C-alpha cells in the first residue's frame, strides 16, 4: 500500500524489525456482527470456516463415539439396528463432506494462501464469501436430514437402496450438492489467485509447497466435483420423478451410479490428503531448519497425485466390474503409490541431519508420516485383487481409510492449526500441553484403529451393528481406544481455548520460517502487509536469527553471497 519499491527489492534493515504495527489487525479493524456477516476479508472467512468445520467435527465425533459404544457388545448395546445405520451414515457424511474436504483448504488455506503469496486477498473475495454461505446452506440441508427421517444409506448413497429407503435422501444429497458448489468456488478462487496474483519474483518453483498442494487440490476440486453434482442431481431425479438412470426396474444401471460416485470420490480422497501433505512439507522443513529435500520432486509429485487420482476410481468396484477392468484399475492404483512414496522419502530425507525441534506442530507432523505410511501401505493390500476379495467391505477398509483420513489429514490439520495458530490469533499456546495432547491422540488413534485391521482380516464386515462373539475382544479394545482418543482431542481443544484467553502475545515469526506469511504481524492487518513483503526462497531459513527477548525470528541484514533461491534441492 505505501511503498512503491518493486517487491524484490531489499528494504533497509529496520524494515525487517517487527515493530508493533500501527494499523489495527484484521480481528479488530472493524467490530460488530455485521462486519463479519458481510466481510470479504479472506482471513475472516477462513476463521468463519474454521468455526463451522470444527462444529461439524464435534458433531461427527460425538456420533463416532456413539457408534463405537454400540459395538462394545454384540447385538444391542445402546441402540437398535436402524439407529445404528443412521448413526454411522451421518458420522461418515458429516466427517467427509462437512469436515475433512473443507478443513485444510477452506479454513487454513483461505487464511494462509493469499498471505503466503504476498497478496491482499484471493482473486474473487465475493465468491469466497459465497462459498462459505453455500457451506452453511449445504450443512443445514445435510443436517436437516437427521431431523426429518434420518439417513441410513451410508455416506456413499448407493443405489438401489438410496432410491427405495424412506429416509431423507433428497435433503441430504441436496445438501451435498450445495456443498459441492462451495468446494468448486474455493477451487476456482485458489487457481485464479495462484495464477494471477503471485508477486514479482515468486516464480512457480519459488512457491512454498503448501501453495503447490492447494493448487493441485483446487484442480481436483474443479474437475471432479461437478461429476458428483450431476450424479446427485440424477439421484434426486431418480427418487423424486423415477427418471430411471440407476434403477434396474426402469432399465437403469446401479453400477453406473457407483462409477459416477467414485469418479468423484476417489479424487476426493486426494482433496483430503494433498493439502495435508503440503502442511507437512512446511512443518518438516521449518522444524528441521533445513530446506525441504527434493523440492521439485515435491511439486511434480503433487501434480502427479492429482492426475493419477482420476484414473483409479474402479478399485472401489473390484467385485462388481469385469475382470479385465479390475486388473487395469488395480495396476493403475499401484501407480499412485509412486508419487506418494516420493513424498514420504523426501520428508525423511529432510529430517536426516536436520536440526529437529520437537514442537507441537512437529510432533503432529511426525505422527502424520508414520500413520499415513501405514494407511498407504494397507491401501496396497486393498488395491491387489486377490487380497481385496477377502478384505473388501470389512473392518480392514475402515482401518485403512481412518489411517489415511484421520491419521493423515486430521493429524496434518491439527499440526497446521498449531503451526499457524500464532498467525491466526496472535497468541502462543502451551507447548507442554500441546505435546501431551499429541501423544494422547497418537496413542489413542492407534489403539482404536490398529485392532480394526486385525478384525477386518478375520472377517468382521463393516457397517454391521451385530457380530459374532469371537470379535468382541478386539471391539472392546477399539472402543476403549476411541474414548482415550476423545480425551486427547478435548485436551487439544482446551489448549487452543486456553491460549485465546491466556496465551502469550505471538511475535511475527515465532518459528523462524521463511515463507511470506511470517513477514507480517501476528495477527496480520486488514490488507495483510503494511509494506510489500520481500520474496526469497521459501525454505531459506538460514537468514533468520532468534531474538531472545521477543521470541521473534528476525532476518539478518542482507549478505550478497546468498543464493538466488531458484534451486532449493540440497
Amino acid at each position, binding site marked *: 500500500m505505501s511503498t512503491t519499491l518493486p517487491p524484490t527489492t531489499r528494504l533497509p534493515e529496520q524494515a525487517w524489525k517487527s515493530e508493533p504495527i500501527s494499523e489495527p489487525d484484521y480481528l479488530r479493524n472493524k467490530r460488530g456482527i455485521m462486519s463479519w456477516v458481510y466481510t470479504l476479508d479472506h482471513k475472516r472467512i477462513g476463521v468463519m470456516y474454521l468455526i463451522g468445520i470444527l462444529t461439524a467435527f464435534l458433531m461427527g465425533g460425538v456420533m463416532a463415539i456413539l457408534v463405537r459404544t454400540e459395538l462394545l457388545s454384540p447385538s444391542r448395546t445402546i441402540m437398535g439396528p436402524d439407529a445404528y445405520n443412521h448413526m454411522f451414515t451421518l458420522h461418515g457424511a458429516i466427517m467427509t463432506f462437512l469436515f475433512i474436504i473443507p478443513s485444510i483448504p477452506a479454513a487454513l488455506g483461505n487464511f494462509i494462501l493469499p498471505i503466503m503469496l504476498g497478496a491482499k486477498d484471493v482473486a474473487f473475495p465475493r*465468491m469466497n464469501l459465497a462459498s462459505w454461505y453455500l457451506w452453511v446452506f449445504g450443512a443445514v440441508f445435510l443436517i436437516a436430514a437427521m431431523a426429518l427421517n434420518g439417513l441410513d444409506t451410508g455416506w456413499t448413497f448407493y443405489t438401489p437402496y438410496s432410491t427405495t429407503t424412506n429416509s431423507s435422501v433428497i435433503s441430504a444429497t441436496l445438501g451435498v450438492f450445495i456443498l459441492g458448489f462451495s468446494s468448486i468456488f474455493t477451487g476456482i478462487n485458489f487457481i*485464479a489467485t495462484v495464477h494471477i496474483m503471485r508477486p514479482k519474483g515468486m516464480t512457480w518453483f519459488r512457491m512454498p509447497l503448501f501453495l503447490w498442494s492447494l493448487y493441485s487440490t483446487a484442480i481436483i476440486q474443479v474437475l471432479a466435483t461437478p*461429476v458428483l453434482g450431476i450424479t446427485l*442431481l440424477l439421484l434426486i431425479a431418480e427418487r423424486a420423478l423415477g*427418471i*430411471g*438412470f440407476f434403477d434396474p*426396474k426402469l432399465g*437403469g444401471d446401479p453400477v453406473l451410479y457407483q462409477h459416477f460416485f467414485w469418479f468423484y470420490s476417489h479424487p476426493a480422497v486426494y482433496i483430503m490428503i494433498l493439502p495435508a501433505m503440503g502442511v507437512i512439507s512446511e512443518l518438516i522443513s521449518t522444524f528441521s531448519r533445513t530446506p525441504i529435500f527434493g523440492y521439485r520432486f515435491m511439486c511434480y509429485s503433487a501434480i502427479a497425485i492429482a492426475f493419477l487420482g482420476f484414473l483409479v476410481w474402479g478399485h472401489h468396484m473390484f467385485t462388481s466390474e469385469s475382470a479385465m477392468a479390475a486388473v487395469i484399475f488395480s495396476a493403475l492404483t499401484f501407480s499412485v503409490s509412486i508419487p506418494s512414496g516420493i513424498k514420504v522419502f523426501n520428508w525423511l530425507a529432510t529430517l536426516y541431519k536436520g536440526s529437529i525441534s520437537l514442537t507441537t506442530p512437529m510432533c503432529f507432523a511426525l505422527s502424520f508420516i508414520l500413520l499415513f505410511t501405514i494407511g498407504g501401505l494397507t491401501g496396497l493390500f486393498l488395491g491387489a485383487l486377490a487380497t481385496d476379495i477377502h478384505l473388501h467391505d470389512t473392518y480392514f477398509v475402515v482401518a485403512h481409510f481412518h489411517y489415511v483420513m484421520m491419521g493423515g489429514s486430521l493429524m496434518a490439520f491439527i499440526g497446521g492449526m498449531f503451526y499457524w495458530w500464532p498467525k491466526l490469533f496472535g497468541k502462543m499456546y502451551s507447548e507442554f500441553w500441546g505435546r501431551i495432547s499429541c501423544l494422547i491422540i497418537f496413542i489413542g488413534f492407534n489403539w482404536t484403529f490398529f485392532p480394526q485391521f486385525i478384525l477386518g482380516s478375520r472377517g468382521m464386515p463393516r457397517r454391521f451393528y451385530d457380530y459374532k462373539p469371537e470379535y468382541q475382544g478386539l471391539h472392546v479394545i477399539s472402543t476403549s481406544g476411541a474414548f482415550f482418543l476423545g480425551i486427547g482431542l478435548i485436551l487439544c481443544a482446551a489448549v487452543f481455548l486456553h491460549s485465546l484467553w491466556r496465551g502469550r502475545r505471538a511475535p511475527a515469526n515465532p518459528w523462524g520460517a521463511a515463507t511470506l506469511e511470517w513477514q507480517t504481524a501476528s495477527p496480520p492487518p486488514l490488507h495483510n502487509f503494511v509494506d510489500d513483503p520481500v520474496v526469497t526462497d521459501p525454505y531459506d531459513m538460514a537468514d533468520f536469527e532468534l531474538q531472545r527477548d521477543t521470541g521473534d525470528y528476525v532476518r539478518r541484514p542482507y549478505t550478497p553471497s546468498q543464493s538466488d533461491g531458484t534451486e532449493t534441492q540440497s
Partner: protein
Amino acid sequence: MIAEAQLSQGPAPHADETFRAHHFETAEQQFAAAKLGMWLFLVTEVLFFSGLFVAYAVFRVLHPEVFVNSAALLDTKLGAINTVILLFSSLTMAWAVRCSQLGQQRGLVLCLSLTIAAAVAFLGVKGIEYAHKWHEGHLWASQYGGPQAGETFDRAGSFFSVYFAMTGLHAVHIIAGIAAIGWLLKRSLRGDFSPAYYTPVDVVGLYWHLVDLVWIFLFPLLYLVG
C-alpha cells in the same frame, strides 16, 4: 487489443478505474483474473454435462435399436429451428462483446436485446416440443406411456429419460443465461461499460457460447440418430 491500447493512452471517460477492486494491482490483472475464473467455471460446466453424455453413451451402446427408434419420435424440424436460433444468438452475443469493446452504446443494447429474444424464442420452441411429448406420453422411464408401452416399456423410457435430463439441464442453463444477459442489459443501459471496462460482457459471452455449444452436441445426438 483495443481496450489495452485505450488504457495505455490515458483516461477514456471511464478509465478512472472506479471498477478496479482494491486487491488487484492493475485493471489488466483484474481482467485476467475474471477471464481465467470464467474459463474454470466453464470447465466445471463441461464436466457437469459430461455425466449425462457418459450415461447417454452407456445406454446407447447397450440398446442401440432403442435409440434409433425413439429418436425418430422427436421433431427434427423443431430441433433444427432451435439450432439456427441459438447459432444466431451466439452471433449477436459475440457482436455485443465487440460493441462494448468499441464503446458502441446503442449497438451493445441492441445486440444484448436480440440475444435475449433469441433465447426466449428457443425456450418457446422447446416448450412446444415438451408439450407435444407430454401429450403423446413420451416421458421418462417411470412415466413412459407412448405407443411402445407394453413391449419395450422401460427401454424407450430410458431414451426419453436421457432426452429430458439433457435438454432440461440445458434449458436451465438457457434460463440462467437470460438472467445474466438481462443483468448486462440493465448495466449497459446505465452506461457501465466502456472500452476500458467490458469484463462482464466478455465473460457472460463466454458462458453463452458454451451453452450454445452444448446444444450443438445435443441436437445430432438426440434428434439425428434416428
